[in-house]
């Protein structure tokens, strides 16, 4: 799980252009939206694309997304249980 969390941190920094952040700056348990990383709605869409492109996970239920994208740790947990690639 630690490796997946590190991979996700790097992927999030890359796809969301968080150039001023390093993986170690991101607390795996911190909220991704609002406080914490302060991501916005476009970032949320980009994360959905990331899930499909990198892990073959299609998210169709918006309510589900709220729980999945709570933190890097929750994304890693969901990916580990649902990944298709």
């Amino acid at each position: 799980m630690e490796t997946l969390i590190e991979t996700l941190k790097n992927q999030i920094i890359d796809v969301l252009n968080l150039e001023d952040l390093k993986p170690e700056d991101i607390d795996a348990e911190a909220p991704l939206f609002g406080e914490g990383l302060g991501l916005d709605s476009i970032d949320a869409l980009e994360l959905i694309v990331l899930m499909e492109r990198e892990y073959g996970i299609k998210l169709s239920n918006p309510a589900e997304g709220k729980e999945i994208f709570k933190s890097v740790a929750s994304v890693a947990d969901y990916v580990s249980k649902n990944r298709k690639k």
Partner: protein
Amino acid sequence: MKVISSIEITPEIIGNLSEYYRRNIGDYPKFFKMDGLCKTGFIASEILLQSLPADIKSDIAIVLFNRSGSLVTDRKYQQTITSEENYFPSPAIFVYTLANIVTGEIAIRHKIMGESSFYIMSENDTGLQNDIAMECYLTSNPSMVLTGWVEYENDEDFYAHLRLLSK
């Protein structure tokens, strides 16, 4: 018409856009999400507007020009939708597939409420740009007009010549 101040930026003058941002601005992480056109306009406007008081800034009108619109980003977005096997349209790129987004980014940064527009013209004609920009005074009464040329091809090839005008 009075030219209050003006600024020109090129790679030769300011170096790399992101490095310039880190060295001289550094308090607006959204900069890194912008496309090249917005980064170019953002840096140039930052130099012109940073010393102005907020009440003056809030009434500025923004009228910008270039030749290629958002073509660089349009092509980048196209790459995300070209392949059937690798069809992953990028929302973060898509939002910059309009040239006038650069006027919005500047307005958000400086809390500017005045009118804004973006024109495409074939040549960088400063006189014509100033004439069009000053037409803002026919319909509203901005404190100043931020106008000029903003063009971005890549990190080694960008140019902005912005001016603050008043009546």
